[in-house]
């Protein structure tokens, strides 16, 4: 009733190819944006920002990045943590080498550097496929983390081997460093998320995205109909790494402030982002958000229930969390291999026909 077009009334190409063909979706999209930009910054406090909103936004960028590679182009990558580390360390080097340049440019440049590194590690994908490739990306993960731990130039020879984000300002407000207010951190991440999501959404429905999907569905067939696999695969690696690099840079500069490559960007991070993509839904931008939200909220929720309400030891709750996450992943894969995004799609189909399904 509310949620549908009453027929096919499209009279122009822009109408036909718009992102949200249904008016209700368009309004919902603008409403979500309005709330995110105009309401939440005024009510957010430190706890909400640091435990939920900021990690959610940052992981959403990483999930979008991995989704482009895995969900749209079909190349499984387990090197997300390593690429996030590239983004973080590139951002750090840029921040300390050019202190006068605005941090926004540093973050974008860090994304660009990560894209170059990602494309280099994507080269083997032209020869090897499937699980062999997934394992090959682990080489990136371990090699990059080792590099950032061992080569002192990357952490400016600091004694602890950590990198610390210096304080940087946008429009006179600190966004990195300890004195950055919660709403500023939130807004910076939100701007980047919006930029990345819009970019990703439009890339994936353009000719580039179509060539990725052709490679994903069957690479030999795609090659025969004229998709260049070299170009498609390497651009997928580059674009995906660009987003992952941005998220790594934000993760370091805005969220944590101080990181050590092995701790923050280890193999567990790669799996975490991969889970977000799988649970959210492969090949869906909305799914990336849903998966990131789910896996950010779940530990916080379990901690509140287990530690604060029931008074169980923290360690036990942490183990319980492993069990629950593992079980949920298996449950989801059995019940809905296409993730949360598929549930959303089904709901939309139902809504379209409601209340007269026939």
């Amino acid at each position, binding site marked *: 009733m509310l949620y549908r077009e009453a027929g096919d009334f499209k009279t122009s190409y822009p109408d036909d190819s718009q992102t949200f063909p249904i008016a209700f979706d368009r309004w919902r999209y603008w409403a979500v944006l309005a709330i995110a930009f105009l309401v939440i910054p005024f009510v957010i406090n430190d706890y909400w920002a640091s435990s939920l909103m900021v990690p959610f936004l940052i992981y959403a960028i990483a999930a979008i990045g991995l989704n482009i590679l895995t969900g749209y182009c079909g190349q499984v990558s387990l090197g997300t943590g390593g690429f996030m580390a590239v983004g973080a360390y590139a951002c750090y080097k840029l921040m300390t080498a050019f202190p006068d340049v605005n941090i926004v440019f540093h973050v974008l440049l860090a994304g660009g550097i990560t894209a170059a590194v990602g494309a280099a590690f994507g080269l083997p994908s032209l020869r090897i496929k499937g699980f062999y490739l997934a394992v090959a990306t*682990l080489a990136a993960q371990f090699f990059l983390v080792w590099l950032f731990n061992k080569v002192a130039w990357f952490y400016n020879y600091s004694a602890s081997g950590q990198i610390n984000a210096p304080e940087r300002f946008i429009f006179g407000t600190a966004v990195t460093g300890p004195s950055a207010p919660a709403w500023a951190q939130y807004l910076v991440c939100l701007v980047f998320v919006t930029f990345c999501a819009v970019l990703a959404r439009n890339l994936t429905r353009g000719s580039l995205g179509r060539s990725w999907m052709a490679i994903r569905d069957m690479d030999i067939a795609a090659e025969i109909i004229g998709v260049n696999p070299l170009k498609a695969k390497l651009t997928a690696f580059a674009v995906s790494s660009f987003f992952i690099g941005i998220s790594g840079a934000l993760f370091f500069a805005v969220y944590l402030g101080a990181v050590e490559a092995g701790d923050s960007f280890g193999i567990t991070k790669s*799996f975490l982002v991969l889970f977000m993509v799988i649970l959210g839904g492969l090949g869906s931008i909305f799914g990336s958000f849903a998966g990131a939200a789910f896996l950010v909220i779940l530990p916080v929720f379990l901690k509140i229930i287990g530690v604060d309400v029931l008074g169980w030891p923290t360690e036990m709750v942490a183990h319980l969390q492993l069990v629950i996450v593992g*079980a949920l992943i298996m449950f989801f894969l059995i019940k809905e291999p296409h993730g949360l995004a598929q549930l959303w799609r089904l709901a939309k189909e139902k809504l379209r026909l409601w209340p007269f399904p026939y």
Partner: protein
Amino acid sequence: MSADFLYGIEVIINGLMAGVLYALVALGFVLIFKASGIFNYAQGVMALFAALTLVGVMEGQVPFSHVINAVFGTEIHHFGWEVPALLAIFVTLLVMILFAWLVQQLVFRHLVGQEPIILFMATIGLAYFLEGVGDLMWGSEIKTLALGLPQGGSLVVEDWTAGLGGDDFYGFFIDKLDMVATLVAIVLVAGLIGFAQYTKQGRAMRAVADDHQAALSVGISLNFIWVLVWSLAGLVALVAGVMWGAKSGVQFSLSLIALKALPVLMLGGFTSIPGAIVGGLIIGVGEKLFEYMIGPMVGGATENWFAYVLALLFLVFRPQGLFGEKIIERV
């Protein structure tokens, strides 16, 4: 012979021994992958779980005692008996078979026909689940595995080889435990090959590995074979868990050996048992030699990534690994 050269040989021998242990873990992967097309990431955690269960059973620990204590406020820890090692191994084996059956019934039976990547994700989920269950059941502190396996350098070998070099060479240092592990691995592999070649179930297993539908059509129960294969993988995991556990204590890092086994698989091919063994030896020797010769120049700790880079370079020339089946694609 110069001492440097002899030390190089010592590094190679130790690398071979380490490679045997990698091969043990890789073997579990290959078994499951061949028979069911599932890339079982949980193999390392299965080794950890098996070792934890073994220690727990031997010490007579009450399963889930932490949870019970936390929820009901009780103070129970041990049954108060100790189980002899052999019986404990048997009990652990039963637990692993039960686990194999549960995994098949509850998870993978419902995922038949899904894409390989979905199955892979499910095993990652399984790995998380099993790790959490292991910690909740037996506690997460580091445990020592006291099976009475010999430890430390072998003096016999050291004395015997000391005469080979000059005055500054003291003979090869070879861990006794590594030697035991090598022996056990040889026995295990021989047993597995014998099982696959000469028993009815083993033949059925190979038939399933060849072609699911053809196997079904001659009356082989896929379900049974898969439980069997997971149980065998559980057995291999138990052996690997015991060996690694005796070496470095039973702790979380044990599950990370799965990551070490992955480049072994890439090198040897996912579908080949000899490949797993040869790949394991190559990786073991390669990473020890690299650490010994190049490691000091680049800051050490190269063992974390060298295996992967080696396997990666290798794959560029032979995408299916050393012994893997040639990948033929049709449109």
